[in-house]
């Protein structure tokens, strides 16, 4: 495969070494667990956390004579994901056997797709940032392919002094391997790319993206070169299981390679492991020990074929994807690109926002969701699913401000009350007497009292009109923040005779 360089070296992404700047080149193979009830080729459950070997059929355990039968939903999920990656869908694909020997692979081979994957080339737009100026940069990362394959079982090495424990519950669970082109040029870009893939798949409902449960893992290919020079020799870092670790592994590996090259050494193509505790990568096996997978078409499975109408039907029911949603939030609801990006990053947040914004001012809803709700959730370490303030409650608070029933300041207090105590915001406003005072007579009385009590300040204010703000503050305080600030402002100025 010839590699095409689609990016221009950008000084801000370069890594400086003793002999000048270096550019890191990254390509990722992301393994995403397909969301499905049963496995790719057997009727056993995909549930996480079941008792050992409980989700295992005789197919998954590779008992003699067992034959694989494909789960059509997994095929559909792969097609949906391919469509979400704007990729070519191959109407005919083939399953191959990838042969290797390991105790958690009872068949002695993994059923995968080699020469003819279900999904071909596509692309993903990734927003990288924000940088120090709060700016995002959009980059395009090419997708090489996406194919379906089986997951392996799980080995535990710490249960016994001389034996490893093998649980085949994961064995045969459907994975999508998504291979990027080597279009990524920094650890930040790699993290943003995986985050975007996860967002797209969560919107599509094709992978839950739960890294704690191993639903998303990545093999990271890293090489370095002098900016714009020929590609260097790459090393593959296997099985990195968190977005943060992906970033750390790339940085550590780039530094290791630069140090070797600057010492006049040579990079050996090899497979490495990332050790998060030490923050370094170490050799797992060299090219000489590399697996020879001896791929060949699986004789138990006919080619996977469907027609364009099948793909079109799936495309028709695709949900709105993050890029489209962001575009709509900006163009139809008047949000800033920044706010729209924040809201669409998690589908649950976008859905919550849309519920709050329905029939209300989009910008105001966005401010409340981002600054107040997400801020409070963040501060208390809660996920959106655990929010004490529902979309309806937040919507009601916004309505109360719009109607002029409460001031913006009181709204913040009301939000606090709903957050800690719950309840209907409208009733709370009544029962706690939070209503904004719009009765001019009452406000006038308060203004008169404040002016009468501070004759010297009133004198100063007449000479220096900016002092009026102090009176507004005092009146607001006297009315418990319930007076309409605009009315107070007007009255203070009128009473003091300032224009």
């Amino acid at each position, binding site marked *: 495969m010839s590699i095409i360089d689609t990016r221009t070296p950008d000084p801000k992404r370069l890594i400086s070494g003793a002999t000048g700047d270096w550019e890191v080149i990254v390509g990722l193979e992301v393994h995403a667990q397909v969301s499905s009830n*049963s496995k790719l080729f057997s009727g056993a*459950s995909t549930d996480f956390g079941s008792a050992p070997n409980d989700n*295992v059929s*005789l197919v998954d355990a590779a008992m003699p004579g067992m034959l694989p039968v*494909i*789960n059509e939903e997994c095929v559909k999920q792969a097609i949906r994901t391919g469509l979400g990656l704007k990729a070519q869908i191959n109407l005919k694909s083939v399953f191959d056997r990838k042969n290797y*020997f390991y105790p958690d692979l009872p068949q002695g081979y993994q059923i995968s797709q080699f020469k003819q994957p279900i999904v071909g080339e596509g692309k993903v737009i990734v927003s990288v940032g924000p940088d120090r100026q709060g700016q995002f940069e959009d980059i395009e990362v090419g997708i090489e392919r996406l194919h379906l394959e089986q997951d392996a079982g799980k080995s535990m090495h710490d249960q016994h002094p001389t034996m*490893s424990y093998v*649980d085949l519950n994961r064995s045969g669970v459907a994975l999508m391997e998504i291979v990027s082109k080597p279009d990524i040029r920094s650890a930040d870009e790699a993290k943003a790319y995986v985050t975007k893939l996860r967002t797209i798949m969560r919107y599509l409902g094709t992978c839950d993206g739960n890294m704690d449960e191993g639903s998303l893992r990545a093999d990271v290919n890293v090489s370095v070169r002098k900016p714009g020079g020929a590609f260097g020799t790459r090393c593959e870092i296997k099985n990195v299981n968190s977005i943060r670790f992906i970033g750390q592994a790339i940085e550590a590996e780039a530094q290791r390679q630069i140090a070797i090259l600057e010492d006049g050494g040579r990079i050996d193509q090899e497979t490495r492991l990332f050790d998060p505790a030490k923050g370094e990568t170490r050799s797992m096996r060299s090219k000489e020990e590399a697996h020879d997978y001896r791929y060949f078409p699986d004789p138990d499975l006919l080619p996977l074929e469907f027609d364009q109408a099948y793909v079109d039907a799936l495309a028709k029911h695709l949900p709105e994807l993050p890029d489209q949603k962001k575009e709509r939030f900006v163009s139809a609801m008047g949000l800033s690109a920044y706010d729209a990006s924040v809201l669409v990053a998690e589908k649950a947040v976008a859905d919550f926002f849309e519920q709050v914004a329905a029939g209300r001012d989009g910008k105001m809803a966005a401010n409340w969701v981002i600054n107040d709700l997400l801020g409070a959730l963040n501060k208390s370490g809660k996920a959106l699913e655990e929010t004490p303030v529902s979309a309806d409650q937040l919507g009601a608070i916004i309505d109360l401000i719009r109607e002029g029933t409460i001031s913006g300041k009181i709204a913040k207090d009301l939000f606090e009350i709903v957050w800690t105590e719950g309840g209907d915001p409208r009733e709370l406003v009544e029962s706690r007497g939070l209503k904004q005072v719009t009765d001019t007579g009452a406000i006038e009385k308060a203004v008169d009292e404040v002016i009468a009590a501070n004759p010297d300040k009133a004198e100063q204010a007449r000479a220096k009109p900016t002092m009026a703000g102090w009176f507004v503050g005092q009146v607001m305080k006297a009315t418990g923040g319930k007076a309409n600030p605009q009315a107070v402002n007007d009255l203070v100025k009128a009473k003091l005779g300032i224009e």
Partner: protein
Amino acid sequence: MSVDLATVKRVAHLARIAVTEEDALRMTGELNAILGFVEQLDEVDVSGVEPMTSVIPMEMRKREDVVTDGGKAADVVANAPASAENFFLVPKVVE
């Protein structure tokens, strides 16, 4: 196509089959005889011919996404040389 002694040893290693020097030598001869026999197929020109995957026109069979199997951990490990708490036990492998 033919294989040499080193290739035979490598294939045996990949399949985790212990082969003695003597066996490997004998197998080199046997495998080359088999390969020579199969090589006769090269006499047929198949350029432009799609590989045949089935003798009758049929599509890949598909399943619905429902759980129909599992819950038989004891059966699954019944034939294992060693097991504990329904885990398979194998000599320690840490890569």
